[in-house]
């Protein structure tokens, strides 16, 4: 066995840092530690120069100029700045925002706060089945737009089911109606092609740690031509052209820049290799186990995402049995709320199946050998837990579980 246990296969939650990224960052801790805002000495100049290079590297990954990149502490902050910043700046133009039901909580909860302040928000449902399951289509966006719509906020790819929205087509629709377009590109950038001009995005949220960079560094792309404005949400020294005050996290920025550079150079070959591993895992699981279901569109999906429901086996119990593998589950039991994943629910997947879902997130540092190990480990765990499952027993006896009046009305 040439790999270490436990195996990390949860690359949508975060990614290990690429050693090349660490190498780029190291000088900026103890040697070149200057404050990028120090304009009058060599330490400051060096830090500023490094941050500017990283700006260009991150910009280049999405077809933007470095001048359009605003550094933030991460994607959550970038999303907050984009949505709140636009809503506030353009409030005289309109008070309607469109987003999707399967967006990240950073978007949904930001929109909910704006609703309390009097904005109107439309939460678009996603397609529930077929090739477009989990997607929002351009016509859905178009139908929701009104003369008061100032912002459409949608993700490039979903963090749970990996579904990729037709973002370029949606961008065209948004622009036709003259609204601004914000793309939460956290999960997709560096994995699938994305370009700010092809998508006509006005604002784009990014983060370092989902693309083998460091945690604690993110960016918001803010279009310059035509100029898009946001009201700053953090007050202070007026850094980042007044849009985000606070001393720059130079080592993080350098790392994010290097990570973006690597992603740009290697994405085309890497995505094929990762999709190959993902398909290998799917094929092995499907060959060995009956009653397993893919959640979300198979055709329009991130290369590293495999979200599967293993019917009759509860997700958290399954993760406990798969203790050698780090994955995640849409089961209620993994959250404090005891509600299963809202993303799976938005797809129209029944609660009973949502509780049985596992998300495998395959990344740069996984290997075929690990895939084979994880497949066998998963098959063993599912088989063991089905032997323990009263629902599996009833299924084998031909009992229709939907015909049963279940005793527990509460969770």
């Amino acid at each position: 066995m040439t790999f270490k246990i436990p195996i990390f296969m949860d690359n949508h939650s975060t990614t290990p840092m690429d050693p090349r990224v660490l190498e780029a960052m190291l000088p900026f801790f103890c040697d070149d530690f200057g404050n990028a805002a120090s304009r009058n000495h060599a330490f400051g100049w060096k830090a500023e120069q490094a941050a500017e290079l990283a700006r260009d590297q991150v910009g280049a990954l999405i077809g933007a100029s470095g001048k359009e990149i605003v550094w933030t502490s991460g994607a959550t902050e970038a999303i907050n700045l984009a949505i709140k910043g636009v809503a506030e700046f353009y409030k005289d133009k309109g008070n309607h925002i469109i987003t999707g039901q399967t967006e990240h909580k950073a978007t949904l909860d930001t929109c909910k706060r704006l609703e309390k302040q009097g904005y109107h928000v439309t939460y678009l449902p996603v397609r529930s089945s077929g090739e477009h399951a989990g997607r929002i289509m351009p016509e859905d966006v178009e139908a929701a737009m009104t003369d008061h719509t100032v912002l459409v906020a949608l993700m490039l790819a979903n963090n749970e089911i990996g579904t990729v929205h037709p973002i370029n087509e949606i961008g065209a629709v948004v622009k036709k109606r003259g609204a601004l377009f914000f793309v939460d590109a956290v999960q997709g950038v560096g994995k699938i092609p994305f370009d700010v001009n092809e998508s006509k995005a006005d604002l784009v949220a990014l983060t370092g740690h989902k693309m083998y960079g460091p945690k604690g560094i993110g960016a918001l792309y803010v279009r310059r031509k035509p100029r898009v404005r946001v009201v700053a949400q953090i007050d202070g020294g007026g850094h980042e052209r007044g849009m985000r005050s606070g001393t720059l996290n130079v080592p993080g920025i350098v790392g994010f820049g290097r990570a973006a550079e690597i992603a740009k150079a290697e994405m085309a070959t890497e995505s094929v290799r990762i999709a190959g591993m993902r398909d290998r895992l799917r094929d092995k699981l499907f060959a060995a186990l009956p009653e397993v279901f893919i959640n979300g569109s198979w055709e329009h999906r991130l290369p590293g995402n495999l979200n599967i429901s293993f019917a009759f086996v509860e997700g958290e119990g399954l993760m406990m049995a798969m203790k050698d593998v780090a994955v995640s589950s849409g089961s209620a039991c993994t959250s404090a709320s005891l509600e299963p994943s809202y993303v799976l629910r938005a797809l129209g997947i029944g609660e009973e199946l949502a509780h049985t879902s596992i998300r495998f997130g395959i990344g740069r540092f996984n290997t075929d050998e690990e895939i084979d190990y994880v497949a066998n480990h998963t098959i063993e765990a599912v088989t063991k837990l089905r032997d323990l499952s009263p629902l599996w027993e009833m299924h084998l006896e031909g009992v229709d579980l939907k015909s049963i009046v279940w005793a527990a009305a509460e969770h």
Partner: protein
Amino acid sequence: MAYSEKVIEHYEHPRNVGSMDKNSDEVGTGLVGAPACGDVMKLQIRVEDGIIKDAKFKTFGCGSAIASSSLVTEWVKGMSVDQAALLKNSQIAEELNLPPVKIHCSVLAEDAIKAAIADYKAKQAKRQA
């Protein structure tokens, strides 16, 4: 969230997994929970002369749910039906060191043994009628 050692121990070596003939007069079956809630327990007891001679379970749920039902089957074996009916979820939660978010697993296990006893008693009442 870390699991207690006792939960892990029961989860990895569950006691008394299996099924009994639910149509037998000696067997009481409790099926509680719901798939939509992420927890379903089936707990069965076989009673002779008022004493629980055997107990079996199958559980769909998280590790704490599996451990709770495994523990209950272990405890009730050898108890009288009336003793078993007095079992409280707090005893299960305490024994397994369940965190607050998992207390519902112990509640479900208490419900399961109570439902199994009620089923057994209903069968006996029917036989005598």
